[in-house]
């Protein structure tokens, strides 16, 4: 049976009704597997999280009593949640800016047409191949007060016997540093791809017009890679809001909840303190933040697609 309706015709085309499959006979089967998985493991849990956030739950996680927005009132009047939220925002800002700046520097250095550039590109990209858990172990080793090179270095610089991970500021810096390192490879690869796709013609024209290389960077390179830059910023921000692995392995949220970022707090409230209602409300707050960031990205990506 030929399917006339699947011939790609101009967007305005509507296939003749008589020759059209009933929808449940064709496309449906292609979509079914994904739809089932998404229904069970994305839509349903999302609805349940909203539902749970409106209930006080018992220790088994079952909804016990409807409390309306009570859980939200509770978390927003909880100084600990506020601290978590504030520190999350500080972390997200430092991490995203750090990743982008580092990646820009690396990409700028690696696009030079010199011998061995391929080796340096691989070196700069390498952190993308290191999982957050493995990276955390590498950094724990560096931060370790007795054997870690960073601790030893600080000691020799005259800071004395510091244990970075038990100092609130130190722990925050440690998490930021390790996260920037982990994120730089991905951002670098993307920026490198964008930089390399800027047509050489533009630079040739600019050179003929006598533009300085500084002016070329600002007037050609930055505008040309700005879609990628924007994409990366959003992706980094979203990723940073979800930061979990480094926290669980390096600091455990401490000291004194300094690094207890929101995704980690959801996990603790749910799986350590069995407070499903509260954890769900916190998860919804996280969802709203992520959804807004993703929405901005979609809007922008859409434009990018149309105007390219």
């Amino acid at each position, binding site marked *: 049976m030929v399917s006339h309706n699947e*011939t790609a015709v101009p967007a305005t085309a509507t296939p003749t009704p008589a020759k059209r499959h009933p929808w449940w006979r064709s496309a449906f089967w292609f979509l079914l597997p994904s739809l089932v998985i998404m229904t069970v493991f994305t839509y349903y849990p999302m609805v349940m999280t909203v539902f749970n956030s409106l209930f006080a739950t018992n220790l088994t996680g079952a909804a016990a009593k409807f409390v309306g927005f009570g859980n939200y009132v509770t978390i927003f009047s909880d100084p600990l949640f506020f601290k978590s939220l504030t520190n999350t925002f500080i972390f997200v800002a430092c991490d995203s800016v750090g990743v982008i700046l580092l990646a820009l520097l690396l990409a700028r250095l690696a696009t030079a047409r010199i011998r061995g550039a391929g080796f340096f590109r691989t070196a700069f990209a390498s952190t993308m191949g290191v999982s957050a858990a493995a990276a955390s172990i*590498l950094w724990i080793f560096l931060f370790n007060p007795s054997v870690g090179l960073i601790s030893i270095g600080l000691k020799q610089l005259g800071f004395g016997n510091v244990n970075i991970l038990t100092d609130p500021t130190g722990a925050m810096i440690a998490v930021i540093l390790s996260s920037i390192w982990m994120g730089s490879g991905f951002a670098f690869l993307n920026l490198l791809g964008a930089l390399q796709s800027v047509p050489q013609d533009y630079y040739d024209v600019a050179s003929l017009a006598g533009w300085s290389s500084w002016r070329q960077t600002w007037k050609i390179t930055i505008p040309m890679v700005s879609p990628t830059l924007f994409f990366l910023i959003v992706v980094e921000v979203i990723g940073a809001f979800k930061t979990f692995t480094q926290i669980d392995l390096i600091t455990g949220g401490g000291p004194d909840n300094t690094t207890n970022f929101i995704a980690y707090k959801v996990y603790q409230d749910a799986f350590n303190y069995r407070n499903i209602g509260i954890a769900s409300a916190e998860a919804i707050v996280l969802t709203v933040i992520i959804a807004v960031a993703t929405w901005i990205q979609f809007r922008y990506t859409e434009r990018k697609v149309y105007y390219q």
Partner: protein
Amino acid sequence: MKYAKRTIHYVLLILIALLVMAPLLLGIWASLLPTTDIVAGHFNSLNISLNNYVAAIQTTPVVLYMWNSLVISSLIMVGQLIFCTLAAYAFAFLQFRFKNGIFFAFLITMMLPFEAQIIPNFQTVRALGWLDSYPGLTIPFFTSAFGVFMLRQAFLQVPRELKEYSDLIGLGRLQFLTRIVLPYTRSTIITFVLYTFLTHWNAYLWPLITTFSDAHRPTQVGLKQLQSEDTFNNWGVIMATAIMVLLPTLLILIIGQRYFRKGLNAGGVKG
């Protein structure tokens, strides 16, 4: 002058490369040193050997963890390749009712953080009896909106004449998909497959809450397990296990670098 400029560039490149690679290089170096040297701060020791790796393999379940990760990542990779390809094919080539609505329903899941779904998902998987098992670690990830989106974008690049040509020579839908669309878009497919493998080899949160035994525990959570065992302060062996765990993904990245550079730009969200 030009020569000097080039030299400065090289020095800068080498310095920064060393700085970026430092945590990894130090980790590799430490994994080759006896723990006694590490604890004593003798990083310039030349007592290098593979003893830590031998010890890691003999005294820790790291090989089992890696096997689990390989099974889990491969299953998810194959599952996503099939499920996402089918859905992307429908969105790219078929006309059907509610197409835009259903596509939107797919896309919207990219806005919803998995972290906000883990509690009900944990309960679902527990109810299905899938805790601490391969199905529980893989089936929830058999599709991804990101994958569907990425593949659909690639499929839309297939010229419509190729679809017409395949109708003309009598290829069925599945043959068109496997014999024309997939080979035509293979660089995206490779990117997608590598990326999926990488993401799930590196997964942490979900296995953390759903695995309780070494039998199904994957590497990333295994690292936590090893690191948090009280008796386990043998730095040499810890570093050796970490290096073993990161080696497969590092190799994938180095081999697949050019695909990531081109493919991921196409749009989407980091896992």
